């Protein structure tokens, strides 16, 4: 499966996302101390790392919620380092955050419609139809307040809202967090489907085994920078990763 995603192709054309020496933090607290990674067009890349290592901080910096303190972010051919979050959404880099951050006081349908806030109306109906087809459970609950959805449905809604923005690259921050084993399974089926459709994905996950099964490549973050990287297959066999995560 991983072979089909031609991991070598980023050699030829410049990568879709190219992060070099990225630094970010909060106050005096430095979290990222020079993170470098790339995602090629159509590629699925996993980011792994222990709790509190800065994966969410990386995502927040990429999507412009947090200002980078150093380094460079190139996306789809332009430099977006320090760009404002709305401009980054406009460019098609869409972040589905940890903790979902849906609008609880709005209906499911309104949440989805706001997903395309930066896109305007022309393509909206078609995108909405496609997203509702992907998430039949959301289609049934369109008029329900989003706050009354179950945790799994809320996660679906967060992803659906992200898809409404017509992403070029979708960042998923722990989409399986807090889901039952059955729903985790469903979530990875969905992620597999999204990448089969050619969507580029940056996937942050605690489910190491399943993430490596779906991703072409992966990065492991430790002490604020990339400690380990390579093809998902190679990392799945890597003893250092196995000891760090799987306790094997």
């Amino acid at each position: 499966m991983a072979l089909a995603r031609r991991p070598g192709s980023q050699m030829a054309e410049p990568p879709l996302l190219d992060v070099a020496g990225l630094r970010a933090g909060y106050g005096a607290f430095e979290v990222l101390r020079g993170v470098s990674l790339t995602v090629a067009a159509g590629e699925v890349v996993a980011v792994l790392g222990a709790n509190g290592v800065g994966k969410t901080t990386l995502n927040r910096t990429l999507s412009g919620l947090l200002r980078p303190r150093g380094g460079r972010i190139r996306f789809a051919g332009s430099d977006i380092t320090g760009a404002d979050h709305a401009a980054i959404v406009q460019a098609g880099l869409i972040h589905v955050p940890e903790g979902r951050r849906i609008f609880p006081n709005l209906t499911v349908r309104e949440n989805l419609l706001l997903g395309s806030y930066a896109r305007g109306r022309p393509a909206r109906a078609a995108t909405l139809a496609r997203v509702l087809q992907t998430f039949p459970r959301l289609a049934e609950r369109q008029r329900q307040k989003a706050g009354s959805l179950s945790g799994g449905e809320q996660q679906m809604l967060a992803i659906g809202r992200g898809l409404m923005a017509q992403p070029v690259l979708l960042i998923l921050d722990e989409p399986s967090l807090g889901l039952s084993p059955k729903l985790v399974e469903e979530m990875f089926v969905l992620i597999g489907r999204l990448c089969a459709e050619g969507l580029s994905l940056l996937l942050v996950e605690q489910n190491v085994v399943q993430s490596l099964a779906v991703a072409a490549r992966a990065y492991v973050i430790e002490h604020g920078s990339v400690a380990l990287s390579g093809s998902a297959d190679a990392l799945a066999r890597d003893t250092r990763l196995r000891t760090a995560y799987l306790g094997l």
Partner: protein
Amino acid sequence: MMALLLPALVGGVLTGGVYALVALGLTLIYGVLHIVNFAHGSLLMVAMFGAWLLATRLGLDPLAAVPLMAGAMFAIGWGLYRFVIGPVGRGDDRGVLLATLGVAVVLDNAALIAFTGDSRSIETPYALQMVQAGPLLIPLAKLVAFAGAMLIALLLWAFMALTDTGRAIRAVAREPEGAALVGIRPARIFALAYGIGIACLGAAGCLLLPSFYVSPQVGGMFVLVAFTVVVLGGMGSFPGAVVGALLVGITENLGNLYLGESLGPICVPLLFIAVLLVRPTGLFGAVR
């Protein structure tokens, strides 16, 4: 007494309509910015003086001035938030709260300098005109003010429910970070919401002018009622603001009718306490 009951009820509803407009602006600003806008009364006073100036200097009827004053007050509110309240408050709720208080103090004293403490009013051709409705005689100015207020409330509701910007305002109110992730700029929405809240005052000022005196202190009177209405209806709730305002208008009138002008005013605070005892979050308040 029964012959007086119906007119008092109708009068209460009519006054309540304009209270609703003042309260809608207040509840919108509270719902989005999570602060009580201390400048609300002062900005209503500014709107009433604006309408008074247009009427006395340019001969523009206050009812015709509603769109103009709503637009002007929107600009003032938006600018105040964008250049004063936002930067001074720096996103800290207490800072924002104190900034609105500062704006109120400046506006009140500026009005005292410009207009002295005197009360003023305008003459309109319809000031004493009455509309006959069955056994009732209704003052035309109040009827028009009520209709105008309800129309504006309806427009505001449609805007909030049906437009992208309206949805964005509601989204930012509860989940600013999620809103940022779909490309909404929360700081712009804050300024916009403040502007819209103040635009309601522009309309309210015009609708009130034909039947009320205007003075630099006039805002305090209305805004105390509006605070009561907003808490009674449920902080941040639109239907709450409208229903609460009508209830307060009716209670006020019935209180004055049955208990007299001196004892009557206790009825609204009594209603307020009674409702909050039964429903601490107000009539339409979200139970969180």
